[in-house]
């Protein structure tokens, strides 16, 4: 099992309650999923070899435009999907004054989306 898969596995267990973390469980699960996504994103950005690491925003932007340019497997959408799930995870990882705690269901969907991205493009 890759490191990413393990992270996502942990997130699942937090969400289904088999590892009890109380109220923080969903947010921790989201953090795990985001780590997995970052790991996946780094793998997609094999070009980032310079000593200075590019920002995630730049990585996502490049991913999006290259996905369209290269048009691998006619799958031009994953750059967009990556952006969406990234923003979704970023939102639930932080506390927002105007929003309630993220629900397990919502995070579960984000975790699933990370897993799908990972499966679609290794």
């Amino acid at each position: 099992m890759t490191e990413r898969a393990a992270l996502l596995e942990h997130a699942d267990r937090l969400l289904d309650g088999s590892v009890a973390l109380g109220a923080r469980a969903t947010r921790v699960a989201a953090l795990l999923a985001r780590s997995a996504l970052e790991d996946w994103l780094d793998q997609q950005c094999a070009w980032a070899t310079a000593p200075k690491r590019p920002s995630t925003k730049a990585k996502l932007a490049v991913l999006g435009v290259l996905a369209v340019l290269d048009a691998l497997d006619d799958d031009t959408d994953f750059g967009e999907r990556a952006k969406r799930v990234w923003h979704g995870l970023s939102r639930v990882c932080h506390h927002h004054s105007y929003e309630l705690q993220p629900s397990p269901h919502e995070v579960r969907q984000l975790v699933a989306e990370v897993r799908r991205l990972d499966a679609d493009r290794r």
Partner: protein
Amino acid sequence: MPVDLRDYVLRRADADDKLSEQGKLVVLAAFEGDDALAEVLNEGATPKKLVDALTAPAADATPPVGAYLTSIAVQGFRGIGAKVTVPLQPGPGLVVIAGRNGSGKSTLAEGLEIALTGFNSRWTGKNQVWSQTWRNLHAADHALIRIGLAEEGSGETTLGVDWPQGDVPVDDLKRWVQRAGKKREDHDVLGWAGALEMYRPMLSYDELSGILEGNRAAFYDELYKLLGLEALNVAMNSLEVQVKSLKEPAAAARKSRDALKTRLAAADDPRAAQALALVAKTKPVLDQVRPLITQGAAATAPAAWRQATGLTTPDSDVVAAACRVVREAAAQEVEASRSSDVLAADRVKVLETALAFREKHGTQPCPVCFESTLDDDWLRRATQAHRKEQQAAQALTAARSASYRTRQALLNLVKEVSPPPVEDAGLTTVGAARLANQGFSITPDDGDLALADHVEAKLPALQTAYAALCDEAAGLISARDDAWSPLAVERAAWLEKAELSAKSAPTLKLASEALTWLQENADVLRNERIQPLADEAKKIWAALRQESNVELGGIKLLGKKNTRHVYLAAGVDGSDTEALGVMSQGELQALALAIFIPRATSEQSPFRFVVLDDPIQAMDPSKIEGFLSVLTDIATERQVIVFTHDDRLPAAIRRSGAPARLIEVTRSANSVVTIDESSNPANRALDDATAIAYDEGVPDDIKKRSVPQLCRDALELTAWDVYSARALADGVSRPEAESAWEAAKKTRARLTLALGGADSAVEAWLGNWSARKTALWVVTKGVHTGVDDYSDAVKATRIAVDDLAKSAR
């Protein structure tokens, strides 16, 4: 009728073997209208032309010419003081107009609604204050609304609303339409009244919850209209009317027959039984019944009666004359016989002998008297005397013969009197008549005078008796007739009705068949018609539901008349139920959207835009992504305008690549409202380009590939906006604009389109503007060769894109 419903019925009818070919025609004709229906039901073969027209599969339905919004402008109305104009990009796409509560954003939505419909749904059922304090106090006294429309094929159109000055109620408004290059016209020329109600291109938060919580029957009716099912009702109604009127002759015939049967059963007449047997048959053979009606009553009366009415007696005058003649002849005979007696006969004998003697012996002395001579003189006198004697004898013979003849004539008169019929139960006077006849016809044989006396004496009695008998028989016959003729009249009336009914029976059978088929298939038709909408709603619900455990099963139109309602089937964790009962407020709203959106975006709607006013008030943050994907999905075919007061949807747009524009509305003191397009796809491409260009961690070869590409995207997106907005405003249809765009493959050619199409347009636009020149170089050459300074390239492109966007305004 909407073509696709008819087509649908046609397919279904074709597939149904139980429906006859003619029945199918009737069904289709019912959809076509009363004239076609009458023609198909008419006697004789339906004209082939009509058959072909009815059974021809419909051509592909072309969507109606649609309209996009190009701008919303409001002045002096509710939250907006000085005139505010929101420019909108006509054509499919998503626009989110965001602003805090009280920013004036809802005023824009209301202004649009008033301009289109003439009223505001928020006022209905609300306090008067809502509709009276509508004028903005910070504006000049002039309140107005202007809506810019791009009608496909006819170009720019303005919808205007004006209010007179002074303290007037809000509905004291004047609406008008102005098409490019034409005079202002009445608002009705758009012909949108029905479509507005049917497709509801605008929906506010209030209405959204109302869709499902409101009157169930009203919701049913709205969907019914939307699906074009009214045509089904109209068709069924006209068939019902036909069937009813076709049933009338049969019903009348049956009613008349029932009455007739009762009367016939009660009638005391041998013919009644016969008629009853014929009439009572399930299917009376009309040809057998007919003679019973046409025959007169007399022909069937008992023979004795008919004989009695046929009795005659000799006329008294005739008899008197005959008797007189008999008596005179008798008298003459007596006279004649007196004058020619035996002596005369003997005298003739003597004379004849003497004449023979004289003849034989010539002149001789008379052998009888001895005194004279039988000479010539004697011969002359004797011959004369002989002739005289002979004549007297002849007169007697003649008198006798005359007497005979007159007697015979009188006897004939007597003989001609026919005897009365034999004894008959109904005839009481027949006995008397028989006696009188006997007394009259047995004549005495003792002489002519006695005979005459007899006839004259007995005739009056005979006459009296016969007259009585005849009267009695005639009375009986006519009484029988009186009882029969009304029955005959009634039967004739029934027969007429029965004949009519028999004539209309095949047509009735046909119409009934068609009606029954339609009734049996109506439910299926209804619910299959709703299927595409239900599927669409299910898809949208699936995107919106996210966390909900409620699954939308299907939408059904159930019930009839007062119980009609829309059934929303739902599955909750595997068990089936009615959706409305198990949904939370937020879910209900999402469900209403799921149903509203397919309706508002129907192919047949003339509105190419959908306006949602604050649709996500009760929506969970997690549903926003789903909602956005639903909206961007619709936005590929429709202009979608969403007003929202919170930042969740704008934030989702900003961070995603969704092809959406974001317009922010802010309101400062004195109701000054400003409009700012804060984000659109071109901006966001440039934002991405900026993020890459400025990042030192991104190597050059990656920048070379991605930055110019993003710059090109931004410039082309803007060029398309500028070009398509103008094309639609000029009345070019969207497919035409799109194919012109696709034909211009290179960025420069597309820029030319945006700048008006002239070959020199690009050079003119570039002029001495270094940023524009740099930008064009980056997106054409730089894509291939790479760029020295990527941040400079993005900066230049941003300026060029802004300039290009402004050139359109």
